[in-house]
């Protein structure tokens, strides 16, 4: 039965895992995602899930187990964060290259050094070219909903590409909220039966997986691998719609909040977007025409759709919870700015890096950003294209 439950982000993911009951769950616990793995282990011990639970000696091995199990024909998942995702590095590319529909819950956490266990997007942003689809969640409900949808997207025959679902470390993973947990059977029905393609265990149709491929054909094969993610946008859209029809919460590539007559826009992902909505309401009550655009899908990046939504703004601030050393700006900013390049008329655009290592961002900070945007819109000039929020300098 569908019910309201008080769960934190990790428990929300674990609930989805229990309902989907994948064939193989392989994970090595790391803060702040540990509770996902712990809860799965408990489900397994209590006989609430039938899938194999494997706890190997490292994240590298966890992803290797996922790759092996997915190649064998199983529906497979993992969960990790930060250094754990980094340790999976070479295996991430292999999972995507082999077009294995593995699903990973990534509890977004900063990267060392210095050592920090708190939330930012440095881990998944570092993995942005590994070939995985990336979906980000604002709150516990979205983490649960996105994780369920991830299987449908990854396993779609036109896609067959791994998907990671991000939720902010501590801010969401350890924050208890009231979420709608859907009926077990309805979730199972929504996700459906998994149909493996070319499973290794099908011994009557023998396959080679992961052979060597040099200058003669590597390029062609690499190009053909991209088709999965290139085919994914209509699938992501359809799955988000169907989820809405079934459970009442529809999802697209991004969410627009009070954008109808907006002249200024703040772009921010994940948990900070919720706080930003409160700030937007305050700004609106002061008569300021500010809106929010919250990207949900970062890979594939919906360039065209976002550019269309932003092209008539006077000024846009893109907030990244990640730095990109030596780049022109942080990842979300460079994507969006690049998407706007082809428009003759386009907004002034600035980049703010915020919240590294879990540094808090509050309503006041968004209001400061809005007042800077007002000034940019008024003067038509951007003095500082790249700066920081709530940083002591």
């Amino acid at each position, binding site marked *: 039965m569908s019910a309201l439950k008080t769960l934190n982000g990790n428990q929300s993911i674990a609930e989805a895992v229990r309902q989907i009951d994948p064939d193989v769950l392989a994970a090595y616990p790391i803060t702040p995602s540990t509770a996902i793995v712990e809860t799965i282990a408990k489900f397994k011990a209590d006989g609430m899930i039938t899938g194999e639970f494997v706890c190997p000696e490292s994240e590298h091995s966890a992803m290797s187990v996922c790759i092996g199990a997915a190649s064998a024909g199983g529906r497979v998942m993992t969960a990790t964060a930060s250094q754990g995702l980094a340790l999976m590095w070479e295996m991430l590319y292999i999972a995507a290259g082999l077009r294995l529909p593995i699903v990973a819950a990534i509890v977004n956490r900063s990267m060392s050094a210095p050592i920090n266990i708190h939330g930012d997007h440095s881990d998944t942003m570092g993995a942005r070219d590994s070939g995985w689809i990336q979906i980000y969640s604002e709150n516990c409900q979205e983490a649960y909903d996105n994780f369920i949808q991830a299987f449908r997207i990854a396993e779609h025959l036109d896609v067959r590409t791994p998907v990671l679902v991000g939720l902010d470390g501590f801010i969401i993973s350890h924050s*208890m*909220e*009231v979420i709608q947990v859907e009926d077990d059977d309805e979730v199972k029905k929504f996700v459906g039966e998994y149909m493996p393609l070319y499973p290794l265990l099908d011994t009557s149709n023998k396959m080679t997986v992961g052979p060597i491929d040099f200058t003669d054909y590597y390029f062609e094969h690499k190009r053909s691998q991209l088709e999965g993610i290139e085919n994914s946008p209509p699938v992501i859209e359809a799955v988000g719609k169907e989820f809405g029809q079934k459970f009442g919460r529809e999802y697209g590539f991004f969410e627009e909040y009070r954008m109808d007559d907006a002249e200024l826009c703040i772009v921010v992902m994940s*948990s*900070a977007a*919720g706080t930003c909505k409160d700030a937007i309401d305050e700004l609106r009550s002061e008569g300021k025409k500010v809106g929010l655009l919250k990207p949900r899908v970062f890979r594939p990046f919906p360039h065209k759709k976002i550019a269309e939504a932003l092209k008539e703004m006077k000024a846009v601030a893109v907030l990244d919870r990640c730095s990109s050393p030596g780049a022109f700006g942080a990842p979300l900013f460079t994507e969006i700015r690049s998407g706007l390049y082809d428009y003759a008329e386009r907004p002034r655009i600035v980049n703010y890096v915020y919240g590294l290592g879990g540094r*808090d*961002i509050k309503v006041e900070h968004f209001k400061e950003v809005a007042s800077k945007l007002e000034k940019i819109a008024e003067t038509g000039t951007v003095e500082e294209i790249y700066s920081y929020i709530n940083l002591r300098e």
Partner: protein
Amino acid sequence: MKETIEIRWHGRAGQGVVTAAVTMADVLSSEENIYVQAFPEFGAEKRGAPILAFNRISKKPIRSHSQVYYPDIVVVTDPSLLGMVDIGSGAKDDTFFLMNTTYDVSLIRERVSLGEKKIYTLDAYTIATDELGRAIPNVPMVAALVKVTELMDLKKFKEKIRISLGKKLRSEVVEMNMQTIDRAFKEVKEG
């Protein structure tokens, strides 16, 4: 009740302060049209170190994920924190304080400048030691908080907490906690 109540918990790591905030959210979550949030401070924690936990309780869906900076209620679960951490930070005119202490309120006011703000006190260590055999102040403090906010009556609160604690504790320990709650409801006092 105001549209949104923001609560800041001051305690020491190991006292069950985060559990207290989570319990508070858990028992209130079943109320019609009440939304709750409970989360720890996003900081470093070592046993005994001062820590924070937070609640938001609202009549509308809660979207903010920042920490609480302007609390409506401040709960202090360890008396030795007075004068050590800034429990009055961000307090508004109508913010009130709930403290685990044996001190007289006049002494508290001497130590911390809280103006005329309302202070409730409870000797949670004694209650917990008497009833549970351990000076764990979280259950009596949650109970006292429910009492002074009038967010739920005693009978209903006990029913809810029986379910909440029952998920983790043996039934005799749950019953000991029921005594703790009765006493906290009775003994929490203003001024």
